[in-house]
């Protein structure tokens, strides 16, 4: 079973439908206890960093257990950003802090939000990018982006006024700034790869 963490924000139907499409058995999990039996965990995210952390905090420890257990995890959009220590969007809020670094505002000379399809520049080969090639396009919607201190966690970037972290990968943890569930066939491919990783 793949758990989609529902901490009370945003639209989970898209990711649910996309996982069904790639033959997974997703389940929307509203209580932290529900994560224990999961073979894989998806952390979606919309809205502001601060509000997201506020709602997500009660899942903090169970998610950490999932990570320690080596269960594949996939963060999407704000679900990537919350892995970091802090964000300029909500300076008072603390992120999960699993990845050192912070989340900063996109440069001033580009349209904000960064909204639409952009090319992926692959930095390291990871299983989740199987079937995806340099230059493939994915759907982004965000105004802030992640700056990890350890650049080796970056699996892919995209160019939007600067090198924007598009995907990070570390052990059992993968997270994307783009929305695979809204990125057509290529996005479904990434989800399919994730589902496959939960069956190993």
């Amino acid at each position: 079973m793949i758990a989609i963490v529902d901490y009370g924000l945003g639209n989970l139907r898209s990711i649910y439908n996309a996982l069904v499409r790639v033959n997974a058995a997703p389940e929307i999990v509203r209580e932290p206890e529900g994560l224990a039996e999961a073979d894989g965990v998806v952390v979606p995210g919309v809205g502001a960093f601060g509000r997201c952390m506020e709602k997500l905090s009660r899942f903090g420890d169970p998610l950490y257990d999932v990570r320690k257990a080596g269960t594949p995890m996939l963060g999407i959009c704000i679900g990537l950003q919350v892995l970091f220590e802090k964000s300029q969007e909500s300076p008072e809020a603390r992120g999960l802090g699993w990845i050192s670094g912070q989340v900063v505002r996109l440069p001033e000379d580009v349209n904000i939000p960064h909204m639409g399809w952009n090319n992926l520049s692959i930095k390291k080969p990871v299983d989740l990018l199987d079937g995806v090639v340099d230059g493939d396009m994915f759907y982004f919607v965000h105004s802030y982006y992640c700056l990890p201190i350890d650049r080796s966690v970056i699996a892919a970037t995209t160019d939007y006024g600067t090198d924007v972290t598009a995907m990070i990968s570390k052990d059992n943890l993968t997270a994307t700034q783009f929305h695979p569930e809204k990125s057509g066939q290529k996005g479904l491919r990434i989800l399919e790869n994730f589902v496959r990783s939960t069956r190993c």
Partner: protein
Amino acid sequence: MLAKRIIPCLDCDLGVPGGRVVKGIEFKQIRYAGIPWELAGKYYEDGADEIVFLDITASHERRDTMVSVIKKTSESVFVPLAVGGGIKSVEEAREVFNAGADKISVNTSALKRPELISEIADYYGNQAVIIAIDAKRRYNLEKGREIIETPEGRCWFECSFYGGREFTGIDALAWAKNAERLGAGEILLTSMDRDGTYDGFDIPLTDAVSRMVRIPVIASGGVGKPEHMLEVFQKTNASAALAASIFHYGEWRIQDVKEYLVENGVHMRL
């Protein structure tokens, strides 16, 4: 590099079971085009970067029909879905988001109560709120208006609401700026003078608005051939082009239009 987007727009008449897609000319004469979720699926397969549903019946009783259209569409269409027409509150927006919409578009209700933009943006994020502006040229130059030079003469643009049936006296350019300040994440800018005419986008209008705001602008109204899309991307800062008629009636396939644009130097997802 960020690609320009091509967005088919499905104007939905929800007064029949399951709804139907229709298209008017200059906001009037209506022609039947297909079943909403079927057409959306076809456009997805055909390379649509995003899909917009507009409920032109826009009455609360029809909301259930729109909700079922979105639910059905989101099962097989994996690009962003935007929904507009008659949404007046966060609660009404929630029904549509829960059905699977990624963005909602507001027009009349936001002109009547601008705080609606902030209310929805606070809850769902700025990226989830599109402000739809239906703008009409006015050649009577009034004081305090944003005056734009056009080949047809100097004019200002007036916002319309209730699907083009009534005018507000509000300056469309000033409203665009205001909507951005209130938290809108994107502007769907329709030229009422061009809508359904096949004469091409209103370039001076699109240029003025897309230079005035930092949020993405979707150009709409008047596209009759791929050259019009090329023109709007070459001459303005529009992020996306929206079209209905040329796709609905089989004149052009989305993929063909995108290939044409790429050949002419526009960055697109193929």
